């Protein structure tokens, strides 16, 4: 029986705005086991970033949240802020998309790292600095004792992202949530960063949730995948199940929309239409207006329930494809 590090159950997140209530997450269910990398995939408006922020309770107070987020048996949504402070950065760490805006520009790398380390562990400044240099070395930054004295703007995008990862692992977290960690980086740097993340999982046993829209990254890095669409996890499974045995029309559409690398096609298969408005989403299944498997009277009235194809493969659909 695998150890579940994080389990999200029936998560619902609505935001009150001037234009109306934004129904960002409707019924999100996903989990991460110890030592595994879960990819959360989806397009604009699917709710993947909101999910990550909700886990760490980083949402504003215009949000209405219900459901459960279980981390080591504790429901994070019920913890007082004082308890959450001990979890953020120490038990669960986050890496954001834009390393320039998530590192403080007026402090050196060393100062920011030691700040985090001393916040969460009882060590002296010297010991914290030693640890800082150690984690910079772990993320393969050359000359870590030189880098500690540098400011973020003196480093390249790839180096900054490595500093972010170093910061995330500095207090030995059980779980890292990486929100589009390589989207802003060149492809060769991306390959290096993904290698570091894979290493963290293999050598340190850290569980990772990687949020991305890049299916190539998911195929190469992840053990399991959760595909999100407009506030739901519409399909989830091992990376083989999702890439080779996807049954949800949206997942299939997404996979076919990527230009294939090893064959020549004239036209890419498209999913017609655009992502739905979250203030007034479509009735029933939110994907129904774009779905080629749409059943009138069912898909536009009843939201789908979670069903299981196997122990690992789940989906939410009234009319999925047959398994190949």
């Amino acid at each position, binding site marked *: 029986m695998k150890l579940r590090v994080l389990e999200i159950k029936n998560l619902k997140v609505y935001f009150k705005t001037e234009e109306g209530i934004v129904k960002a997450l409707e019924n999100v269910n996903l989990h991460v086991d110890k030592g595994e990398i879960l990819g959360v995939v989806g*397009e*604009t408006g699917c709710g993947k970033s909101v999910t990550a922020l909700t886990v760490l309770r980083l949402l504003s107070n215009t949000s209405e949240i219900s459901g459960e987020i279980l981390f080591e048996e504790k429901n994070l949504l019920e913890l007082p802020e004082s308890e959450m402070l001990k979890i953020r950065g120490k038990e669960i760490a986050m890496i954001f998309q834009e390393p320039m805006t998530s590192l403080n520009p007026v402090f050196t790398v060393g100062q920011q790292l030691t700040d985090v380390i001393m916040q969460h562990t009882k060590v002296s400044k010297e010991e914290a600095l030693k640890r800082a240099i150690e984690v910079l070395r772990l993320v*393969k*930054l*050359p000359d870590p004792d030189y880098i500690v004295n540098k400011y973020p703007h003196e480093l*390249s*995008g*790839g*180096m900054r992202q490595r500093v972010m990862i170093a910061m995330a692992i500095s207090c030995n977290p059980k779980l890292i949530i990486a929100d589009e960690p390589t989207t802003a980086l*060149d*492809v*060769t*740097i*991306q*390959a*290096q960063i*993904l*290698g*570091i993340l*894979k*290493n963290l999982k293999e050598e340190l046993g850290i569980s990772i949730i990687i949020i991305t*829209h*890049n*299916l*190539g*990254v*998911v*195929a*190469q*890095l992840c053990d399991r995948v959760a595909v999100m669409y407009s506030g739901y996890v519409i399909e989830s499974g091992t*990376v*083989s199940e999702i*890439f*080779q045995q996807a049954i949800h029309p949206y997942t299939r*559409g*997404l*996979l076919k*929309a*990527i*230009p*294939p*690398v*090893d064959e020549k*096609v*004239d*036209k*890419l*298969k*498209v*999913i*017609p239409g*655009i*992502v739905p408005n979250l203030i007034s989403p479509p009735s029933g299944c939110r994907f129904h207006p774009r779905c080629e498997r749409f059943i009138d009277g069912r898909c536009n009235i009843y939201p789908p329930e979670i069903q299981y194809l196997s122990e690992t493969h789940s989906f939410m659909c009234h009319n999925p494809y047959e398994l190949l």
Partner: protein
Amino acid sequence: MKKSEKVILKTEELLKSFKVKKNFFSEPQWIYPVDKVSLEIFEGETLGIVGESGCGKTTLGRTILRLLEPNGGKIYFNGEDITNLTHKEMRNYRKHMQIVFQDPYSSLNPRMTIYDILKRPIKIFKLCDKTQEPDLILETLRNVGLDKQHLIRYPHEFSGGQRQRIAVARAIISKPKFIVLDEPTSALDVSVQAQIINLLTELREKHNLTYMFISHDISVVKHISDRIAVMYLGNIVEIGPTDSVFYNRYHPYTKILISSVPLPDVKKKAEFKLDTSEVPSLFTKFNGCKFVDRCPYKMDKCSDEKPAMYKVAQDHYVRCFLYEKDGKGGGEGK
């Protein structure tokens, strides 16, 4: 394969430089994002330009269209030298040389309706008289998959993909021969990207357009391009037919670049190499090959001499001394 022998666009040792300060206290230095680039683009083909940050691909696209003024070299459009034409003289050419930008959110004027945005080129290029204007606008809009009801709306009322369609409409309304597409799908979701790519392919066939498709997304470039040029720090280091470049990867940089792309294929798992080499900044001075510090195949002469382009296969050239014996210097893309 080349669609035709007619050269629509040609550059000869095109140079674009900027004088910049590395930081507040330093002296300004010259950087050369386009460092004597020579290329030819044939009618009806799509030339893909790939490369990472600082390689100069965007600067190249803009300099070719004279949106940035070249600092050296020549640009020929349809055989005519347009390098030093005045802006007034360029007007006649701009009808035939258009651009689609990366960011659909900042490339459309937020205070103009779609009708106004498409009316602009008609007015500037005198494409038709006032009575024919609405028909031309509607026809162009329909060509990109939008319709009548969209004409009175403003850009902010559309999604990213729709805005990009409007940007494409604006580019094709003057019936250009050549379009520079600068990362046209990078800001879009995967499924929307597919829609725009299909649209671009369709329009290319329908109107016999020639594209220069700039992107960092190698799988997209591979799908849409007939030939690919790989850029590194201001130079084209490899250029050839798409499949030949993609599968042969002659230049050491091309090898690293293409093998870094994560494949959405679970059966082909990549080994992530934990090396730490990065692209040097444009401020770095090189006496010889610019790739020398990162190159696993470097020889002594690489630090001291600049390699020329050497032919490695049909229409395929590589800027690397490894291929000097096989090919002769010179040929397309010097």
